[in-house]
Protein backbone atom coordinates (compact mmCIF):
# COMPACT_ATOMS: atom_id res chain seq x y z
CA UNK A 1 0.00 0.00 0.00
CA UNK A 2 1.49 3.32 -1.07
CA UNK A 3 1.13 5.98 1.59
CA UNK A 4 2.42 9.51 1.82
CA UNK A 5 4.09 10.99 4.89
CA UNK A 6 2.58 14.19 6.25
CA UNK A 7 4.01 16.31 9.05
CA UNK A 8 1.51 17.62 11.58
CA UNK A 9 1.57 21.11 13.05
CA UNK A 10 -0.75 22.46 15.72
CA UNK A 11 -1.30 25.21 18.26
CA UNK A 12 -3.33 24.97 21.45
CA UNK A 13 -4.51 28.56 21.61
CA UNK A 14 -4.92 31.47 19.25
CA UNK A 15 -1.63 33.35 19.25
CA UNK A 16 0.46 30.32 20.28
CA UNK A 17 3.31 29.27 18.04
CA UNK A 18 2.44 26.61 15.50
CA UNK A 19 4.47 23.60 16.62
CA UNK A 20 5.49 20.39 14.95
CA UNK A 21 3.65 17.68 16.88
CA UNK A 22 4.45 14.60 14.78
CA UNK A 23 3.71 12.90 11.50
CA UNK A 24 1.25 10.47 9.95
CA UNK A 25 1.20 8.26 6.89
CA UNK A 26 -1.92 8.57 4.77
CA UNK A 27 -3.44 7.83 1.35
CA UNK A 28 -4.03 11.47 0.48
CA UNK A 29 -4.66 14.94 1.91
CA UNK A 30 -8.14 14.08 3.15
CA UNK A 31 -7.11 10.96 5.04
CA UNK A 32 -4.04 12.80 6.34
CA UNK A 33 -6.39 15.31 7.98
CA UNK A 34 -8.39 12.47 9.58
CA UNK A 35 -5.30 10.61 10.74
CA UNK A 36 -3.69 13.74 12.17
CA UNK A 37 -6.83 14.79 14.02
CA UNK A 38 -7.45 11.34 15.49
CA UNK A 39 -3.81 10.44 16.21
CA UNK A 40 -2.82 13.68 17.93
CA UNK A 41 -6.03 14.07 19.90
CA UNK A 42 -4.38 14.61 23.29
CA UNK A 43 -5.13 18.34 23.19
CA UNK A 44 -8.14 20.43 22.31
CA UNK A 45 -6.26 22.11 19.46
CA UNK A 46 -7.20 25.58 18.31
CA UNK A 47 -5.59 24.88 14.95
CA UNK A 48 -4.02 21.91 13.24
CA UNK A 49 -2.46 21.65 9.77
CA UNK A 50 -0.75 18.92 7.79
CA UNK A 51 1.82 19.27 5.04
CA UNK A 52 3.30 16.64 2.77
CA UNK A 53 6.82 16.00 4.00
CA UNK A 54 8.12 16.17 0.43
CA UNK A 55 6.87 19.77 0.20
CA UNK A 56 9.04 20.93 3.09
CA UNK A 57 12.23 22.54 1.77
CA UNK A 58 15.27 22.01 4.00
CA UNK A 59 17.19 25.22 4.52
CA UNK A 60 20.44 24.42 6.29
CA UNK A 61 20.86 20.64 6.22
CA UNK A 62 21.61 18.16 3.48
CA UNK A 63 20.53 15.06 5.44
CA UNK A 64 17.62 13.96 7.61
CA UNK A 65 13.96 13.05 6.97
CA UNK A 66 13.02 16.21 5.08
CA UNK A 67 15.92 15.82 2.66
CA UNK A 68 15.13 12.13 2.24
CA UNK A 69 11.49 12.93 1.45
CA UNK A 70 12.73 15.03 -1.47
CA UNK A 71 14.89 12.22 -2.80
CA UNK A 72 18.12 13.08 -1.00
CA UNK A 73 20.20 10.96 1.43
CA UNK A 74 18.79 10.07 4.83
Amino acid sequence: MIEITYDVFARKNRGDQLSHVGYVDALDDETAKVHAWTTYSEENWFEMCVVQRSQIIPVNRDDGPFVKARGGPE
Partner: protein
Amino acid sequence: MSDAINVDALSDGGRAALERLILSLADSKRLMGIRYSDWILGSPSVETGIATSSMTQDEWGHARLLYAMLKQLDIDPVPIEHDRTAEAYANLSALDEPFEDWAALVASMVIVDGALSVALDAFSEGAFAPARQRVPKMLAEERFHVSLGVAWFRRLAAASEEARALLRAATDRQLPAALVWLAADDESSRELVELGVMPPPESLTTAFRASVRDVLAEGDADVNAYFDAAGPASDWDSTRGRAPGQPDADSVDRARGAKNRALFVE
Protein backbone atom coordinates in the same frame (compact mmCIF):
# COMPACT_ATOMS: atom_id res chain seq x y z
CA MET B 1 -37.23 25.86 9.95
CA SER B 2 -40.63 25.15 11.46
CA ASP B 3 -41.60 25.88 15.07
CA ALA B 4 -40.53 23.26 17.57
CA ILE B 5 -43.18 20.74 18.54
CA ASN B 6 -44.54 20.50 22.07
CA VAL B 7 -43.71 16.92 22.95
CA ASP B 8 -46.20 16.87 25.81
CA ALA B 9 -49.02 17.62 23.38
CA LEU B 10 -48.20 14.79 20.96
CA SER B 11 -50.78 12.14 20.16
CA ASP B 12 -49.99 8.52 21.03
CA GLY B 13 -49.14 7.94 17.38
CA GLY B 14 -46.84 10.94 17.28
CA ARG B 15 -45.02 9.84 20.42
CA ALA B 16 -44.62 6.30 19.11
CA ALA B 17 -43.28 7.57 15.80
CA LEU B 18 -40.75 9.84 17.48
CA GLU B 19 -39.67 7.08 19.85
CA ARG B 20 -39.18 4.72 16.91
CA LEU B 21 -37.09 7.27 15.02
CA ILE B 22 -34.85 7.99 18.01
CA LEU B 23 -34.38 4.29 18.72
CA SER B 24 -33.60 3.48 15.11
CA LEU B 25 -30.96 6.19 14.96
CA ALA B 26 -29.49 5.37 18.38
CA ASP B 27 -29.38 1.59 17.81
CA SER B 28 -27.80 2.11 14.40
CA LYS B 29 -25.15 4.36 15.91
CA ARG B 30 -24.39 1.84 18.63
CA LEU B 31 -24.05 -1.00 16.15
CA MET B 32 -22.02 1.19 13.79
CA GLY B 33 -19.62 1.78 16.69
CA ILE B 34 -19.31 -1.95 17.29
CA ARG B 35 -18.61 -2.58 13.62
CA TYR B 36 -15.88 0.09 13.64
CA SER B 37 -14.43 -1.30 16.85
CA ASP B 38 -13.98 -4.72 15.21
CA TRP B 39 -11.34 -3.17 12.97
CA ILE B 40 -9.32 -1.11 15.44
CA LEU B 41 -6.60 -3.76 15.41
CA GLY B 42 -7.21 -5.08 11.91
CA SER B 43 -6.96 -1.94 9.84
CA PRO B 44 -4.40 -1.55 7.05
CA SER B 45 -2.20 0.87 9.03
CA VAL B 46 -1.69 2.11 12.57
CA GLU B 47 -3.12 5.51 11.67
CA THR B 48 -6.23 3.94 10.14
CA GLY B 49 -6.70 1.84 13.26
CA ILE B 50 -6.50 4.96 15.42
CA ALA B 51 -9.02 6.68 13.17
CA THR B 52 -11.30 3.66 13.44
CA SER B 53 -10.96 3.77 17.22
CA SER B 54 -11.89 7.44 17.19
CA MET B 55 -14.92 6.75 15.00
CA THR B 56 -15.99 4.02 17.43
CA GLN B 57 -15.95 6.55 20.24
CA ASP B 58 -17.84 9.05 18.11
CA GLU B 59 -20.57 6.56 17.28
CA TRP B 60 -21.04 5.47 20.87
CA GLY B 61 -21.14 9.09 21.97
CA HIS B 62 -23.78 9.81 19.33
CA ALA B 63 -25.78 6.78 20.44
CA ARG B 64 -25.65 7.97 24.06
CA LEU B 65 -26.93 11.42 23.11
CA LEU B 66 -29.71 9.94 21.01
CA TYR B 67 -30.85 7.47 23.69
CA ALA B 68 -30.94 10.38 26.14
CA MET B 69 -33.47 12.14 23.89
CA LEU B 70 -35.98 9.47 24.96
CA LYS B 71 -36.20 11.28 28.29
CA GLN B 72 -38.17 13.95 26.44
CA LEU B 73 -40.83 11.28 25.97
CA ASP B 74 -40.65 10.26 29.66
CA ILE B 75 -38.82 7.06 28.70
CA ASP B 76 -35.91 5.93 30.86
CA PRO B 77 -33.02 5.26 28.45
CA VAL B 78 -31.11 2.99 30.88
CA PRO B 79 -33.17 -0.19 30.37
CA ILE B 80 -33.43 0.67 26.69
CA GLU B 81 -29.64 0.66 26.43
CA HIS B 82 -28.90 -2.27 28.69
CA ASP B 83 -31.85 -4.64 28.93
CA ARG B 84 -33.33 -5.12 25.48
CA THR B 85 -32.86 -8.35 23.57
CA ALA B 86 -31.71 -8.53 19.95
CA GLU B 87 -35.20 -8.79 18.48
CA ALA B 88 -36.07 -5.38 19.94
CA TYR B 89 -33.21 -3.57 18.18
CA ALA B 90 -34.26 -1.05 15.56
CA ASN B 91 -30.93 -0.61 13.77
CA LEU B 92 -30.47 -0.34 10.03
CA SER B 93 -30.35 -3.97 8.87
CA ALA B 94 -26.98 -3.67 7.10
CA LEU B 95 -25.44 -3.51 10.58
CA ASP B 96 -26.89 -6.83 11.76
CA GLU B 97 -23.73 -8.84 11.08
CA PRO B 98 -20.01 -8.06 11.48
CA PHE B 99 -18.21 -6.95 8.33
CA GLU B 100 -15.99 -9.72 7.10
CA ASP B 101 -13.43 -7.65 5.24
CA TRP B 102 -11.97 -4.15 5.17
CA ALA B 103 -13.80 -3.36 1.92
CA ALA B 104 -17.14 -3.97 3.63
CA LEU B 105 -16.21 -1.65 6.48
CA VAL B 106 -15.12 1.01 3.98
CA ALA B 107 -18.40 0.63 2.10
CA SER B 108 -20.28 1.02 5.38
CA MET B 109 -18.48 4.31 6.10
CA VAL B 110 -19.87 5.67 2.85
CA ILE B 111 -23.22 3.90 2.62
CA VAL B 112 -24.46 3.09 6.12
CA ASP B 113 -22.81 5.90 8.06
CA GLY B 114 -23.69 8.17 5.12
CA ALA B 115 -27.37 7.21 5.24
CA LEU B 116 -27.41 7.78 8.99
CA SER B 117 -25.90 11.23 8.50
CA VAL B 118 -28.52 12.13 5.90
CA ALA B 119 -31.27 11.13 8.33
CA LEU B 120 -29.58 12.97 11.20
CA ASP B 121 -29.10 16.08 9.10
CA ALA B 122 -32.83 16.11 8.36
CA PHE B 123 -33.63 15.40 12.02
CA SER B 124 -31.46 18.38 13.06
CA GLU B 125 -33.49 20.68 10.82
CA GLY B 126 -36.87 19.37 11.93
CA ALA B 127 -39.26 20.34 14.69
CA PHE B 128 -37.81 18.27 17.55
CA ALA B 129 -35.84 20.80 19.59
CA PRO B 130 -33.30 18.43 21.22
CA ALA B 131 -32.23 17.25 17.77
CA ARG B 132 -31.67 20.80 16.65
CA GLN B 133 -29.43 21.37 19.65
CA ARG B 134 -27.43 18.14 19.80
CA VAL B 135 -27.21 16.68 16.31
CA PRO B 136 -25.08 19.38 14.60
CA LYS B 137 -22.04 18.40 16.71
CA MET B 138 -22.51 14.78 15.67
CA LEU B 139 -22.61 15.81 12.04
CA ALA B 140 -19.42 17.83 12.47
CA GLU B 141 -17.66 14.70 13.75
CA GLU B 142 -19.13 12.65 10.91
CA ARG B 143 -17.24 14.77 8.37
CA PHE B 144 -14.10 12.85 9.29
CA HIS B 145 -15.87 9.52 8.83
CA VAL B 146 -16.97 10.54 5.34
CA SER B 147 -13.47 11.71 4.41
CA LEU B 148 -11.91 8.44 5.47
CA GLY B 149 -14.63 6.35 3.83
CA VAL B 150 -14.53 8.20 0.51
CA ALA B 151 -10.73 8.09 0.27
CA TRP B 152 -10.62 4.38 1.02
CA PHE B 153 -13.54 3.59 -1.29
CA ARG B 154 -11.70 5.31 -4.13
CA ARG B 155 -8.45 3.59 -3.27
CA LEU B 156 -10.07 0.13 -3.27
CA ALA B 157 -12.05 0.88 -6.44
CA ALA B 158 -8.76 1.66 -8.17
CA ALA B 159 -6.95 -1.35 -6.73
CA SER B 160 -6.98 -5.04 -7.64
CA GLU B 161 -9.82 -7.06 -9.13
CA GLU B 162 -10.19 -8.77 -5.77
CA ALA B 163 -10.59 -5.46 -3.97
CA ARG B 164 -13.16 -4.28 -6.53
CA ALA B 165 -15.10 -7.53 -6.17
CA LEU B 166 -15.22 -7.18 -2.38
CA LEU B 167 -16.31 -3.56 -2.70
CA ARG B 168 -19.03 -4.48 -5.15
CA ALA B 169 -20.31 -7.30 -2.96
CA ALA B 170 -20.46 -4.96 0.04
CA THR B 171 -22.22 -2.25 -1.98
CA ASP B 172 -24.73 -4.79 -3.28
CA ARG B 173 -25.52 -5.82 0.30
CA GLN B 174 -25.52 -2.44 2.00
CA LEU B 175 -27.00 0.02 -0.48
CA PRO B 176 -30.43 -1.63 -0.85
CA ALA B 177 -30.68 -1.89 2.95
CA ALA B 178 -29.80 1.78 3.42
CA LEU B 179 -32.31 2.85 0.77
CA VAL B 180 -35.12 0.77 2.25
CA TRP B 181 -34.42 2.35 5.65
CA LEU B 182 -34.40 5.91 4.27
CA ALA B 183 -37.41 5.34 2.00
CA ALA B 184 -39.71 4.00 4.72
CA ASP B 185 -43.19 5.32 4.05
CA ASP B 186 -45.45 3.83 6.70
CA GLU B 187 -47.84 5.38 9.19
CA SER B 188 -45.09 6.44 11.62
CA SER B 189 -42.99 7.97 8.86
CA ARG B 190 -45.94 9.98 7.60
CA GLU B 191 -46.71 11.09 11.16
CA LEU B 192 -43.17 12.47 11.51
CA VAL B 193 -43.50 14.31 8.22
CA GLU B 194 -46.80 15.80 9.34
CA LEU B 195 -45.25 16.94 12.61
CA GLY B 196 -42.37 18.54 10.75
CA VAL B 197 -39.85 16.31 12.56
CA MET B 198 -38.61 14.68 9.35
CA PRO B 199 -38.95 15.44 5.63
CA PRO B 200 -40.69 13.06 3.19
CA PRO B 201 -38.69 9.91 2.38
CA GLU B 202 -38.08 11.06 -1.21
CA SER B 203 -36.15 14.02 0.20
CA LEU B 204 -33.94 11.67 2.20
CA THR B 205 -33.18 9.34 -0.70
CA THR B 206 -32.53 12.30 -3.00
CA ALA B 207 -30.11 13.86 -0.50
CA PHE B 208 -28.42 10.51 0.01
CA ARG B 209 -28.04 9.96 -3.72
CA ALA B 210 -26.48 13.38 -4.13
CA SER B 211 -24.03 12.75 -1.30
CA VAL B 212 -22.76 9.33 -2.41
CA ARG B 213 -23.36 8.99 -6.15
CA ASP B 214 -19.94 10.24 -7.26
CA VAL B 215 -17.92 7.99 -5.02
CA LEU B 216 -20.14 4.92 -5.44
CA ALA B 217 -19.96 5.34 -9.22
CA GLU B 218 -16.27 4.48 -8.98
CA GLY B 219 -17.14 0.94 -7.89
CA ASP B 220 -18.58 -1.82 -10.06
CA ALA B 221 -22.06 -2.00 -8.55
CA ASP B 222 -25.02 -0.79 -10.61
CA VAL B 223 -25.69 2.05 -8.21
CA ASN B 224 -28.22 3.89 -10.38
CA ALA B 225 -30.39 0.80 -10.57
CA TYR B 226 -30.59 0.69 -6.79
CA PHE B 227 -31.43 4.37 -6.49
CA ASP B 228 -33.98 4.22 -9.32
CA ALA B 229 -35.72 1.35 -7.56
CA ALA B 230 -35.63 2.97 -4.11
CA GLY B 231 -38.93 2.74 -2.31
CA PRO B 232 -40.73 1.21 0.65
CA ALA B 233 -40.14 -2.49 1.29
CA SER B 234 -42.99 -4.99 1.28
CA ASP B 235 -41.62 -6.87 4.30
CA TRP B 236 -41.02 -3.77 6.43
CA ASP B 237 -41.24 -4.15 10.22
CA SER B 238 -43.25 -1.05 11.06
CA THR B 239 -42.99 -1.63 14.82
CA ARG B 240 -39.21 -1.22 14.83
CA GLY B 241 -38.87 0.84 11.66
CA ARG B 242 -36.47 -1.50 9.93
CA ALA B 243 -36.27 -4.52 7.64
CA PRO B 244 -36.86 -7.94 9.24
CA GLY B 245 -34.00 -9.47 11.21
CA GLN B 246 -31.91 -8.59 14.21
CA PRO B 247 -28.27 -7.98 15.14
CA ASP B 248 -26.08 -10.94 16.07
CA ALA B 249 -26.12 -12.06 19.70
CA ASP B 250 -22.49 -11.21 20.44
CA SER B 251 -22.89 -7.63 19.26
CA VAL B 252 -26.01 -7.18 21.35
CA ASP B 253 -24.14 -8.52 24.39
CA ARG B 254 -21.44 -5.92 23.74
CA ALA B 255 -23.99 -3.16 23.19
CA ARG B 256 -25.73 -4.04 26.43
CA GLY B 257 -22.49 -4.34 28.42
CA ALA B 258 -23.37 -7.93 29.28
CA LYS B 259 -19.91 -8.79 30.64
CA ASN B 260 -19.86 -5.83 32.98
CA ARG B 261 -23.30 -5.93 34.50
CA ALA B 262 -21.89 -6.55 37.99
CA LEU B 263 -20.12 -3.19 37.70
CA PHE B 264 -23.16 -1.33 36.42
CA VAL B 265 -23.55 1.86 38.45
CA GLU B 266 -26.01 4.05 36.52
